[in-house]
């Protein structure tokens, strides 16, 4: 293990990044070490970049430890570059960060100055010329070769013909040089977080009626959805917050199964939700602010109605599913999806229709064979009393729900073992399934839970009913 990074105090006592941890410990007994976590570092850099959005909207990450701000046209807000730099320094020092910064005519120049400037210079052009060739960030051998050739600074290189440099070290080296000296554009890839879609309205005089508040909400929905249209997005999740003048806030949220830009639909879902509230929206002393936020966006292109009306019908079904899910709860409108297991009660998943994944193929029926799985499944299986031959004969008659059923036809057993590879206790007992038909022609799915050598007196259950 090596040191990834050291603080100024450690630098002062002679520790350097890249040093083996054992050596460092040998030098300093009471060394405080923290494991290096690049993901957390990246996260922190991202948060700093977010904070820098106060200076300019164009902030680019220079991983792992740099930020590039395009301050063109933004510095006057801080009374010039010096004021802006002072503000940046003040804030970063307050966060406990050490900072190296530089201003440059292009992004690459500023970056090179911040990372490699060793000697002060009277102006920017001079400063760039005095940068070491390491600022080109070529491979170590190429840098060494340049230094050996006596070309120690960018200025030395820039005074030579560019063609020679390109021939010797490749086009990338020439390009890097041109970028740093400002001859080639150095575009910035700014980190842009789309601002969340929020529409809100404040009232000087609190609103005393819920009906009025809902009306305002529908206006807000119109505004927010206009905003979505401009972005080519649709909302999946809408959250309305009603702030009461006495400080309480009530949030009501709805969800849709597909991204939507239909304000009418959104308001219908809100109306549905509010109708179903156990304690209705209470204005109290009045609402002084209403906010509609759309936290979850998804791409939604401009749509066109299809001539045959197929899309319209699908949309109608989706809207019905959304409306029922809003009224009953999202888990109560479901679609069925297969699960990869042979344990019957786990072979299907009932997922909320709002975010059920794409359909997967189901097991196709065997041609000419009757179904081997029931139409209705009991989960959990219901215990029954069975008369059957010991140890592993088929059931003769059984009692279920206080009624006797004499078995006329049967097929089985279909032996389904427990999933011994999943659970430590071998997964439980083996089941022997029988497909049986009683004297009235009803078909049932029975099983014996456990073999006789697994359990002295295995119980019988009914697991399903066939069509």
């Amino acid at each position, binding site marked *: 293990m090596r040191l990834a990074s050291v603080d100024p105090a450690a630098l002062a006592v002679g520790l350097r990044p890249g040093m083996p941890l054992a050596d460092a410990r040998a030098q300093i007994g009471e060394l405080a070490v923290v494991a290096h976590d690049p993901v957390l570092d990246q996260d922190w850099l991202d948060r700093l970049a977010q904070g820098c959005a106060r200076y300019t909207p164009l902030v680019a990450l220079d991983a792992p430890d740099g930020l590039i701000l395009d301050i063109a046209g933004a510095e006057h807000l801080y009374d010039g570059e010096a004021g802006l730099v002072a503000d940046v320094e003040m804030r970063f020092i307050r966060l406990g960060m050490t900072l190296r910064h530089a201003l440059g005519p292009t992004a690459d120049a500023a970056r090179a100055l911040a990372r490699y400037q060793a000697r002060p210079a009277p102006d920017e052009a001079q400063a760039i010329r005095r940068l070491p060739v390491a600022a080109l960030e070529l491979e170590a051998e190429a840098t060494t070769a340049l230094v050996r050739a006596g070309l120690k600074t960018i200025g030395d290189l820039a005074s030579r013909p560019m063609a020679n440099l390109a021939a010797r070290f490749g086009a990338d080296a020439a390009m890097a040089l041109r970028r740093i000296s400002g001859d080639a554009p150095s575009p910035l890839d700014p980190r842009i977080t789309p601002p969340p879609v929020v529409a809100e309205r404040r009232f000087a005089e609190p609103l005393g009626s819920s009906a009025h508040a809902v009306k305002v909400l529908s206006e807000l929905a119109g505004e927010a959805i206009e905003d979505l249209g401009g972005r080519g997005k649709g909302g999946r999740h809408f959250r309305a917050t009603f702030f009461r003048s006495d400080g309480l806030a009530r949030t009501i949220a709805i969800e849709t199964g597909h991204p939507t830009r239909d304000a009418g639909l959104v308001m219908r879902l809100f109306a549905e939700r509010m109708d179903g509230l156990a304690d209705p929206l209470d204005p109290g002393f009045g609402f002084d602010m209403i906010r509609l936020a759309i936290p979850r966006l998804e791409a939604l292109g401009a749509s066109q109605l299809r001539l045959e009306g197929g899309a319209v*019908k699908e949309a109608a079904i989706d809207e*019905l599913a959304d409306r029922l899910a809003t009224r009953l709860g999202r888990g*109560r409108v479901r679609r*069925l999806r297969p699960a990869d297991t042979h344990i019957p009660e786990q072979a299907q998943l009932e997922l909320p229709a709002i975010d059920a994944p794409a359909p997967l193929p189901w097991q196709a029926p065997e041609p000419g064979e*009757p179904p081997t799985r029931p139409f*209705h499944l009991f*989960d959990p299986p219901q215990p029954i009393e069975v008369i059957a031959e010991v140890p592993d004969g088929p059931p003769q008659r059984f009692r279920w729900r206080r009624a006797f059923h004499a078995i006329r036809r049967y097929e089985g057993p279909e032996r389904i073992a427990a999933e011994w590879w999943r659970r430590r206790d071998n997964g439980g007992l083996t089941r022997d399934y029988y497909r049986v038909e009683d004297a*009235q022609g009803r078909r049932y799915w029975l099983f014996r839970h456990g073999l006789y050598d697994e359990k002295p007196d295995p119980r019988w259950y009914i697991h399903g009913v*066939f*069509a």
Partner: protein
Amino acid sequence: MRESIHPLAGLRQRIARIAASGGFESRPAEGWLTSGHARFDEAVGGGLAVGRTHEFFAADALDATSAAAFAALVALRTPGKAPLIWLRTSDAGRRSGHIYAPGIAELGGDPDRLLLVEAADPKMLLACANDAIRCAGSAAVIVESWGKFPLLDLTAGRRLALGARDAGTTLLMLRLNAVPAPSVAETRWGVTAAASHALEANAPGAPAFDLELLRWRGGPAGTRWRLDWNHDEHSFGETTLSGALLPLPARRAMASHGAAAA
């Protein structure tokens, strides 16, 4: 006086329009949910009319699965991907069992077409049914209820039927563990399980249904049918592989053919 003439004339016009369109029931159906068995479909005027209400009664709780499966198979026989909206109450899973997709897939139906809606109580079930029935584009809407359904009186039934007619959706009412009662349904069926034709080694065969047409607005009721489901051909039929059928008397009237096997 002039003011009162206009409303009167308007009302007369409305009555004339209603009379011209033939009223509620006599409008021809837009299509049929068919069983795939030609004689059965022919005998009930083409099948189960689209845009109407059809009731399936399982008088005995043990026949709940037969009634549910028959309604589902008739709806899932329709080509395309139109969803089958199935509304039930929360206790249905405990009473008649959860709808089991692998079983539906083995019957040849497409479980991806199912949209299951679980209402907390019969009142909510009826409210959701009213919404679902007004949404065009579904293959059918199945409303499953258990026992007596006092909320479903003639008014509620007619409201559902009108919604279904206007949107062109088919409503299949599953009345499990219930006795038939008057309603506005187009057809009313009693469904019970029938003994299957045994396969080799006395194994239970293809699903078999005993159907009794209890009421039909378009013709005589009382016929009985015994249908098998053939998942390879995706249709119902009266003959099976074994050939060990009760012979059908050839001279009996068309309408009572179905009773032969019952």
